[in-house]
């Protein structure tokens, strides 16, 4: 099948790079000492992480009472953070798997770092269910293993068990997918090094990759299969996360719209995080030729579409509450917008629906500063979306005598800050340790080396 290259389409990578130049551009930062900017960012992230570690240590030694939870609002910051982080991860899989199947060649510049983002976000997400268990040292009870209690098996009808399996599978497959993509690039790095410890280590981690086409041919097949598996997987993960809520009978949670609503929201928030990170990485690592305004433009469009989907879900929830004639449901939604936590609802709607509307304008999309600001606001809005869903539905339950409020304690805020610290510490280490751009994929989309404008095959 002949591929036609349009003359009108701008090249994905700027500067008419040759294959060798790509290798050099991406490998050089790894062979140099880190820049001052990197050290400042790393120290900031690591300080935040240390704060989080201290908060969690205090939590473990004292108990869940150090959080602001009460018997009415039993889930708040912890699960908000969990859903927020797991959602962030989804854009990475969208870029690595779904856009791969859709043959979106621009993904090659961002997929490595987006997949790294997925892995680190899932690590952050996984911590929250763990630390909100009263006895986190018994977390392995979630796993169905033969035990001396009967054997007492886990309840496979429970969405919390589904969640455990979904997150574990998602994490494993994301790591494997990311690592597979990394292997040829580690070989490239290895062959630039002089014999020594680093070279031996690189060869260890790239499994002795030698660029044989027989290996490449199998590799491409495996990559396609993993993308095919990853696509339904990413949809299933946030679907299952939404079932944690939707299978309960709490008004505001018990809704069939939850799975698509959560999946769209996850991709929306994740895309915003990808934009935040890509604009930072572009400046920090000087990748102006690889992450171009065209890439940012395309990601802005995905963000805009998913913002529309999320907006539709918000409207549908209100409509369903009205149309259901269910008083509890109607009350909860009015209370969301105009009750004691109304401010969080309006932060959510303005950040998630109004702010992204600016992305309709090319001028905004082509200004990296403006896009950066929009992406930060969306991150804030999407964090509040989960807060709104969880806290406003719980603080007014069926029995007015048990109505209560919720205020986060400094320990909870420190834990949230710590999760950001963990995320950015891992991400900054990633920037230093492996090629931040998928070398072997970017080389395949260069315009260099193709003399014919039309068709791969003469």
């Amino acid at each position, binding site marked *: 099948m002949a591929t036609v290259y349009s003359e009108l389409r701008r090249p994905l990578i700027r500067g008419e790079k040759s*294959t060798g130049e790509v*290798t050099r551009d991406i490998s050089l930062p790894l062979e140099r000492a880190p820049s001052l900017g990197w050290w400042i960012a790393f120290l900031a992230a690591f300080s935040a992480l240390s704060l989080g570690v201290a908060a969690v240590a205090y939590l473990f030694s004292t108990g869940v009472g150090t959080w602001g939870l009460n018997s009415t609002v039993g889930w708040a910051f912890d699960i908000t953070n969990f859903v927020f982080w797991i959602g962030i991860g989804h854009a990475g899989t969208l870029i690595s798997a779904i856009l791969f199947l859709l043959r979106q060649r621009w993904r090659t510049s961002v997929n490595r770092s987006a997949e790294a983002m997925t892995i680190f976000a899932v690590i952050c997400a996984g911590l929250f269910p763990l630390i909100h268990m009263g006895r986190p040292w018994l977390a392995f009870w979630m796993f169905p293993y033969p035990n001396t209690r009967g*054997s007492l098996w886990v309840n496979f009808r429970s969405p919390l068990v*589904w969640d455990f399996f979904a997150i574990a599978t998602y994490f494993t497959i994301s790591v*494997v997918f990311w690592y597979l993509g990394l292997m040829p690039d580690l070989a490239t790095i290895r062959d630039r090094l002089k014999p020594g410890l680093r070279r031996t280590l690189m060869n260890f981690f790239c499994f002795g990759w030698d660029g044989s086409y027989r290996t*490449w041919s199998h590799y491409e*097949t495996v990559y396609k299969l993993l993308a095919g598996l990853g696509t339904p997987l990413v949809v299933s993960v946030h679907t299952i996360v939404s079932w944690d809520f939707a299978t309960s009978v709490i008004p505001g949670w018990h809704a069939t719209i939850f799975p698509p609503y959560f999946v769209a929201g996850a991709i929306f928030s994740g895309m915003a995080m990808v934009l935040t990170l890509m604009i930072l990485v572009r400046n920090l690592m000087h990748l102006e030729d690889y992450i171009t305004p065209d890439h940012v433009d395309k990601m802005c469009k995905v963000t805009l579409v998913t913002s529309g989907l999320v907006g539709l879900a918000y409207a549908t929830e209100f409509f369903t509450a009205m149309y259901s004639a269910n008083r509890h449901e109607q009350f909860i939604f009015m209370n969301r917008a105009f009750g004691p936590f109304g401010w969080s609802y309006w932060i959510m709607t303005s950040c998630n629906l109004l702010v992204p509307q600016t992305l309709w304008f090319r001028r905004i999309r082509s200004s990296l500063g403006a896009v950066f600001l929009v992406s930060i606001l969306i991150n804030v809005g999407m964090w509040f979306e989960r807060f709104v869903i969880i806290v406003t539905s719980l603080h007014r339950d069926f029995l007015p005598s048990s109505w209560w409020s919720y205020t986060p304690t400094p320990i909870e805020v420190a834990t949230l800050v710590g999760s950001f610290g963990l995320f950015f510490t891992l991400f900054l280490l990633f920037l230093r340790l492996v090629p931040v751009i998928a070398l072997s994929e970017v080389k395949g989309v260069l315009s260099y*080396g193709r003399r014919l404008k039309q068709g791969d095959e003469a």
Partner: protein
Amino acid sequence: MTRRYFIGYFDHEDDILGVSKAVCKAGFSVADVYAPYALHGLDRAIGLAPSKLPWVCFLLGLLGAAFKVWFEFWTTAQDWPINVGGKPWNSLPAFVPVTFEVMVLCAGLSTVFAFFFVSRLWPGKKPRLLDPAVTDDRFALVLEATDATYDPRLLEGIFQQFHVVRVEERVEERKV
């Protein structure tokens, strides 16, 4: 037994695709091609059979899913049935999500391990590198000089048409 290899190095993607096709047409069989990235259309050019790894993915995925359905049924309906909200012992629809996840996990991991196995890749393997540049920006076409059709001058002629950078002959000693 000694094996003789004839290797041509090329700098451009178009050249390596063209030369692979040309040598196959001239009746040579390509031993392997070394490339820094996956070349599209080369498998057909050198007549490489499609990978059979999708079968591993399908069968192991099916096996994982089947095992998980059985396991969920056995734990919840047979080994220790517990009444949860009056739901039936064998709550098949509720078993679907975990079954799906386990299927994806088994299919994905087994495919990757099968890939390592068929491509003989393992941590710390000593690579057979023709030239350190094949992981950077150079392509190498390897032909094995075996049969009567082998004619180095004809080959060099074909190579020249496709802007060959360097030609090399290698003799390897191998135990049979």
